[in-house]
């Protein structure tokens, strides 16, 4: 495998983890979060600080998970206070706040970011394997949750909080759980990203990146784990497959987002299901 292929596959793995984890918050539990980049960034910075402090890979992963999750639970508390559409604005705010804060912190490298992060010692191919293993684990966890009692409770809270409450579901606890798990995984993705690049700046974690993650979830079919995985792989490969797209990346992402929602608000999953039904009927 060439170095280029290894790096593309690594990025795909990271994006799959991010999109699937965002889907747990926004798809399963109906809490629209447009600030997933901030949790990704928090994990990346935590891992970077651990690695430059000679903490080693396992400790960096733990630090990334915990930092992402901590920030996520704090934002989760906000989700208990405000309605879903207010929450969307609040999470945008969290993303801007994160970027604005890091830019001004000299101990986080400010605008320049953190460079010279020690390698994991696994090599590029080893890193890729580690990323893919974590991505597989994330998908497995997502599938498991979606079929578990917790997954049903998430969906109930996402569909209709009042009705869920009458069934004895503590919606606050489940919202916090969705944020806690989803953002822990985003933090993990951040840690893996740090191992992969060995150099981070805050620009990688801005609001636009969060929008791209949301695009993956929506285009894949909000709530569907496999749909989101397919969309994450597809939308990561798209700029690579067609070179010219890279210059017009945002145009294409924005356009796809508008088109898919306008033509098939359920995303690819609903489109495939409808196609399947149509074929069976005929």
């Amino acid at each position, binding site marked *: 495998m060439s170095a280029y292929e290894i790096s593309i596959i690594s990025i795909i793995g990271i994006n799959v983890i991010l999109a699937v984890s965002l889907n747990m918050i926004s798809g399963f539990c109906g809490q*629209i979060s*447009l600030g997933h980049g901030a949790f990704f960034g928090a994990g990346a910075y935590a891992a970077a600080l651990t690695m430059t402090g000679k903490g080693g890979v396992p400790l960096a992963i733990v630090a990334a998970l915990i930092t992402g999750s901590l920030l996520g639970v704090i934002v989760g508390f*906000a989700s208990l*206070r*405000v309605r*879903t*559409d*207010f929450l*969307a*604005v*609040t999470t*945008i*705010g*969290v993303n*801007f*706040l994160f*970027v*604005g*804060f890091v*830019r*001004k912190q000299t101990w986080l490298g400010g605008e320049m970011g953190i460079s010279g992060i020690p390698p994991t010692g696994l090599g590029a191919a080893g890193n890729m394997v580690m990323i893919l293993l974590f991505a597989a684990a994330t998908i497995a966890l997502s599938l498991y949750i979606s079929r578990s009692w917790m997954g049903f409770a998430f969906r109930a809270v996402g569909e209709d909080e009042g009705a869920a409450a009458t069934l004895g579901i503590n919606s606050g606890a489940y919202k916090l759980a969705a944020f806690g798990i989803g953002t822990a995984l985003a933090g993990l993705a951040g840690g893996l990203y740090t191992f992969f690049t060995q150099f981070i700046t805050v620009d990688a974690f801005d*609001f*636009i990146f969060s*929008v791209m993650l*949301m*695009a993956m979830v*929506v285009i894949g079919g909000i709530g569907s784990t496999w749909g989101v995985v397919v969309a994450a792989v597809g939308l990561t490969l798209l700029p690579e497959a067609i070179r010219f797209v890279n*210059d*017009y*990346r*945002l*145009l294409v*992402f*924005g*356009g*796809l*987002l*508008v088109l898919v*929602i*306008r033509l098939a*608000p359920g995303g690819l999953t609903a489109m495939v299901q409808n196609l399947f039904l149509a074929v069976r009927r005929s």
Partner: protein
Amino acid sequence: MYYIDLAVTGISFGCMYAMMSVGLTLVYGLLRILHVAHAAVFALGAYVTVLVGNATGSILLGFLAAVIVTPLFGIAIYRLLYEPLLKYRPDVPMIASVGLLVLMQDAFRIVFGEQGITFHRNAFAFTTFNFSGVTVSAVQIAIVMTAAVVFTGLHLFTTRTRIGIGWRATVSRPQIAASFGIDPIKVRYLNFAVGSALAAVAGGLVAELNNLVDPGIGFVVSYKALAIIVLGGLGSVRGTLIASLVLGLVEAYGTIFIGAWLDRDAIAFLALIVLLMIRPQGFTGARTA
């Protein structure tokens, strides 16, 4: 004197935010959609102002062109994007709106370039007045005066004319307004037209203030406008005006006191999050247009 300078900056920014956000808050009041793409309308207004201003040599004509073009664009967004999506959850049209904004910003970048475009002649931007130590720029005065005229006009329109009263009625009680024979669809068109024109004026003024329109012009301002309408208690014009001025002032003073810690935009969102935690329903709470 320094603190008064900051107040001048804060108030002028507040007036600009107010012109941006009123359209948004009215869209929310009518349709329950967070109209993120309003920022693209704002940016379009800024671009048209500069392009026509440069082509004709008259900035005034630039503004005129902007308030003609942007309402059409705003109405097109409603008709082509939002209307078919109204039957879905409110976050569906909102995400479509985010997509449209990202697409538009990138389209501006591709057409007009990364560096943006400037006015050929904009003496206005560099004129300043000195009132016993307090420096005020001509553009700041223009922003405050425009906002004052626009909002007085809007107030008279919505309280003295039949169309305006019908509009107000539809925003606050859609069913009852419809039962009185007010056409809700016409109100929506009016709403997108007026809101977009206001955003375009704000965009043109920001272009003057910076003497530059770049592809990112709408981005940050738009999210601030969202923060403002949430703070103002979605759907309330009065709340939005208050929240705009408060945010303008918080930003102006905030950059002095905690500027070493956070940048200007982060301060605005910190204020948003703190205030939302204290008052989740916004400043006014109730929906009154």
